[in-house]
């Protein structure tokens, strides 16, 4: 089972509403640095960076097993267990484990789908496979 946020870069317009919704949901402020999805312009299109819940290298790397996989196949971080080493940030091959300077813990997409609900161009979709 793998539930994840699927991205369609060809549809993305770079409006950034997804980042606003994400950071408001989890940090109570509109701040792209605090969003678990990142939209950045690149050569005429947009790079959409978000955890695809599949490689799980961060889960293997975490020294305190603060990262686990829930029954839906989503990788979750338990902040009470996290010791803030940021090893998971460094090991993520697509830079989807997020962190901003001074934060005690990193954060990531948990496939809640709020951003997909508001995306005006249908560039985001929650998908369940397997």
């Amino acid at each position, binding site marked *: 089972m793998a539930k994840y946020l699927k991205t369609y870069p060809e549809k993305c317009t770079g409006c950034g509403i997804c980042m606003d919704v994400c950071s408001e949901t989890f940090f109570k402020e509109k701040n792209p640095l605090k969003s678990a999805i990142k939209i950045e312009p690149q050569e005429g299109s947009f790079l959409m960076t978000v955890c695809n819940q599949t490689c799980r290298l961060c889960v*293997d*790397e*975490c*020294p*305190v*097993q603060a990262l686990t996989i829930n029954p839906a196949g989503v990788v979750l971080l338990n902040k009470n267990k*996290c*010791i*803030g*080493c*940021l*090893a998971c*940030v*460094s*090991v993520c091959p697509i830079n989807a484990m997020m*962190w901003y*300077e*001074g934060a*005690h*813990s990193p954060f990531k997409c948990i496939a809640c789908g709020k951003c997909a609900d508001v995306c005006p161009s249908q560039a985001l979709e929650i998908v369940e496979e397997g």
Partner: protein
Amino acid sequence: MTKDLEKIRSGHKLLKEWDYQLKTVDKGYNMRTLYVNISDKTVKEKSVSEEMKMTFTGGKGFGMKLLWDGVTPETKWDDPENEICIAAGPIGGNTNYPGSGKSLVVSLSPLTGIPIDSNVGGYFGPYLKFAGFDAMEIQGKADKDVIIYIDGDNGKVQIIEAPFEAVDSHVIGEQILDLFAENEEDKMNISSVSAGTGSDNAWIGCLNFSFWDKRRKGVRFKQAGRGGIGTVFRNKRIKAVVVRFSGLNGASTHPADLATVQKIGLKLHKEIIALDDQQCRMRKVGTAHLSEIMDEYDLLPTLNYKYGSHKDAPNISSEVFYNEFLSKGKPDGCWYGCTMACAKVAEDFELKTGPYKGQKVLVDGPEYETIGGCGSNLGIFNARDVLEINFYCDTYGLDTISFGTMTAFIMECWENGILDKEKTGGLDFTWGNAKDTLELLHQISRGEGFGKIAGKGIRQMKNYFEKHFGADRKFMDDIGMEAKGLEYSEYVTKESLAMQGGYGLALKGPQHDEAWLIFMDMVQGLIPTFEDKAEALHYFPMFRTWFGLQGLCKLPWNDIEPADNAQTDEPAKVPEHVQNYVDLFNAITGQSINKEELILQSERVYNFQRVFNIRMGKGLREHDAIPYRSVGPVTVEEYESRVERYDKQLKEKAGIDPAGLSTEEKVKALRKFREDQYEQLIDAVYKRRGWTNNGVPTLEHLKKLGIAFDEVTAVVKKHL
């Protein structure tokens, strides 16, 4: 197990309980240390003055200062006033920068009689710091076996009589967790220090620092190996020192500037993840990768350092350990947040000998030094045998380096007829005999037979063999790889004069943690003159001493290098990483040192330790002498094995035409040349370090460093 635990608990008797005020660490420091005397059961805290902090920095610096104050020039290792000091350092315990979890252990060594310092992983030092103490010192001697327990959650220190716990580390390590952890999850909050039954009987005892391996659900250990501190520990009748601390987080050191600590740490994490596979493969195989490199460069100690390579060395290469024994795909940091993760382990390793025969155990390692010392140096080219020796050394509390090097000496004595079965009580020390090597270990654990003699190390064996067996002293002095009484670690130094000095001038005895200059010197030819070598033997020992002041591991300094390191002015120094350390220190402590002041911090402690050696009667030029086996070929056989190399050197460097000379004559001529080179090197290094030609720091130098305290100058004045 529950029944065993009940029995163990029933033997506990609380001998002392002392409460202290909990407070949080501030910018890397607690500004207090813990003093525990197990003779009279005094427990107290000592405050750290601003002067002590600025002079000794922390870690090994604090350990040396406390030990100096605790002992006298007459103190022997087994006197009650000898101490064991354990300290992290200001950087120790941060979870962001790889390699930040080291404990520094200091004591007077049974082998050398002078201060020994050992740098060890595991959770103890950081937890001690977060429990409230920058260092702890243990003095005195208990009448009966005890455990010292520091409860950093509730502010309590206890001394507990502990008659029923095991002594061997892999057993007591588990017992401690069952006794002190409230549940499985709580085990990560407990760390212990223990030794083993070998430490009861030998002078090469080591300490095991524990860490709970959450994934493998087993207790793991890193060893404070060198110099016999485990022996001091058991002589004091300590079974374990235990610390509890819960609530570790990324800001537990309370740094002045957390964001900078995180940024520097993250940068190095990313470097390691991106480059380690192409560089040292530490994440995969740990330090074991060195065995094939050393073999390739003729540096892998083989048959008691006679040679530097062997046709069977591929049998103990990292690939063999990796493919056949090591567990894969799980992080192996000995402290949180170390992505270098080199603390490898063999799981479900079934023991074939000794009291634990048949048990399936975790074997930590093997480290390169263990492969060199307990493998190639003994002619043992079987990876399984190396692991079994590794396991028993660890659980018995014996240093694998000293054990390997001293057994190599025994085997060469056997080869030369100094030893035979009558003298060893039936043990056969033919090169490669793993079975009797293991039996020697078990004898040491039981305190029996030849093991009792051997376990005291090479220097004592030389005395014993001369006195009781009429052995040739000069030959044993040539081949016995010890200096200052400590066994050599595992590199062949014959072709690197700078590294001969690296070992001979190392304060504690011949350990490579002060300087590893072989490639710079021998392979790259970067330090050709005596002055160049002296500069390297100033800078690198000072730079590397700094890790011990901070609670840092050396490996993430140069076992990973930035991609553009080779293009920098001084690649051997890894300039970007040096800057990381400066920035890291400043971000944690709020101070503002530069890279020159970093060296100055080390220089103070380094010179203090040299004076400490002099104070204990072993810090002068005569004590920096090294065995000829580390300088050049002792025997005809050795010379002839590399005849082209040595003939060429005689001709080109010493100006002696080898044609027409017998091998004996050539050995003698080369020896005269090389020994003279070593003396010239020492002259140059002493000068560079600000020492007299007898190796004594001058008053001017001590003043310049700010350590010209009355009791320090009183020691050197006798020698000026």
